[in-house]
């Protein structure tokens, strides 16, 4: 394992030290691994909180700031945070108008956020679960779909709406609508290596890829021979289009890198993906190309398509000022 770290146990804590040093506009609670805006929201405004396992940077801490999250709760690498961390963050960001929890659909995340809500008694909490990964069959008898790329777009859009002063119920409804209108699909060229384990989670041959991976270094749905960018784009876009009708509506499209894939390749992939989408009648109105929700040092990418409308595009375009997404301010 070759990583720029000190001890394997210290990665999260020390990355937060670096984050705090790089971003004076954030306040880091090192003991509890919570990242807040240094400048809290005005009283009576709903706060937006997210969190999850670490190793997906810039998600979530990189999205704390004006127009997006009020706080991010950081779990250990690939491990959801604990209820007391989440409850503390919830209490801290509440300005009296309640707190919206944005939770990626993983058993651990859902359970820990649930327990946190019980602990944060007295504060109005609404929870929206994100489950956008079409690689996983949707079923009420299973853990269901994973929350992946839509999380980034959702945090931006709902964060913008919160700045407008909308109330908790409106924001939760908006978040559910966004969560319902986006789909993602990912693939890996290599597995991630957790610092604590020191070995790749799975081994891929020199000419193999995993299709349908999530963001936790887990194996995907199937292993297929390495194809061209064009073929891989089709493997990602087709299941997304098969799962949801994007119609002629404008779409926000993210071509996300898993952490170790260079930007030049992501742009090659975006060219292929946007061509496929346009061919299918999906109008790419806004786009993001880069590392936005990663899986440590995994090489690979994922595609996220969100059906939008004028309201969502307006919220997308609204000012945002976070370490990883910034415009208009």
């Amino acid at each position, binding site marked *: 394992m070759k990583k720029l770290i000190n001890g394997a146990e210290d990665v999260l804590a020390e990355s937060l030290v670096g984050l705090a040093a790089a971003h004076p506009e954030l306040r880091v609670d090192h003991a509890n691994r919570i990242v807040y805006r240094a400048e809290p929201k005005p009283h009576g405004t709903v706060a937006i909180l997210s969190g999850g*396992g670490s190793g997906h940077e810039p998600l979530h801490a990189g999205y704390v700031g004006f127009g997006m999250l009020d706080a991010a709760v950081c*779990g*250990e*690498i*690939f*491990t*959801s*945070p*604990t*209820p*007391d*961390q989440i409850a503390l963050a919830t209490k801290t960001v509440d300005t009296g108008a309640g707190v919206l929890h944005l939770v990626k659909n*993983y*058993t*651990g995340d859902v*359970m*820990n956020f*649930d*327990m946190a809500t019980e602990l944060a008694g007295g504060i109005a909490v609404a929870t929206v679960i994100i489950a956008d990964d079409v*690689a*996983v*069959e949707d079923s009420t*008898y*299973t*853990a269901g779909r*994973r929350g992946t790329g839509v999380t980034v777009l959702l945090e931006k859009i709902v964060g913008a709406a919160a700045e407008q002063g909308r109330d908790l119920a409106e924001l939760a409804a908006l978040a559910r609508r966004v969560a319902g209108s986006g789909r993602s699909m990912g693939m890996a060229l290599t597995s991630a290596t*957790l610092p*604590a*384990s020191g*070995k790749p*989670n*799975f081994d891929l041959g020199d000419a193999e890829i995993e299709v*349908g991976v*999530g963001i*936790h*270094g*887990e*194996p995907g*749905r*199937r292993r297929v021979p390495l194809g061209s960018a064009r073929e891989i784009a089709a493997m990602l876009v087709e299941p997304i289009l098969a799962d949801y009708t994007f119609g002629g509506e404008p779409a926000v499209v993210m071509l996300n890198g898993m952490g170790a894939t260079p930007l030049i390749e992501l742009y090659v992939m975006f060219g292929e993906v946007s061509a496929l989408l346009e061919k299918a009648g999906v109008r790419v109105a806004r786009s993001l190309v880069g590392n936005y929700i990663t899986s440590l040092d995994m090489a690979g990418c994922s595609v996220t398509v969100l059906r939008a409308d004028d309201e969502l595009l307006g919220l997308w375009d609204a000012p945002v000022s976070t370490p990883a997404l910034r415009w208009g301010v």
Partner: protein
Amino acid sequence: MRDAPAISYEQLLNWLRFIDEGLIEQRGFLTELDAAIGDGDHGTNLARGAGAASSKVDAEQPEYLDELFKLVGMTLVSSVGGASGPLYGTFFLRLATGVGHRQELTPEQLADGLEAGLGGVVERGKPEPGDKTMYDAMAPAVRAFRAGISSGDVASASRSAADAAAEGRNATADMVARKGRASYLGDRSVGHIDPGAASVALMFEALAAALA
């Protein structure tokens, strides 16, 4: 069996110690199981939790067993995270309520406690038999313990609980996962032991050792 000898505080403290030791030993193994069909952190998660729980117990030295198990459960909840934190945490919190405010337990009281703990896991995770989770090792183990104390002593009951857990653990290899991360793999989860079932087997092995 009437008048069975009581299970002492010390024996149950040993249980926790043996779990801790077992996790230090099997941490890599559990993580490898999790790497194959999950995200490769199960051993790390539990080792962190057990370490935190031991320190807490050493520091606070609770007098009663319900306090002991509650402290363990709370510490697991607040230090493990992931799926196993709430599940094991809830197990110990319910075990605490199940055994009551006591300094030693009858075999029945321990069986009640284990059943309450199992009930907590079911409530939290909604696992069904055959979903390929920790439940598939825990449920047979708890059943075997209850059956064991009606026909033998706690030593043999906990031995058969450990054996049932191991059998349950092994049986998860043939299952298609429907809960937890392994469910994302669908059929590809077959052929791999569930890491949570493996840590449950470890926990009951530790119990057998403590009550031997």
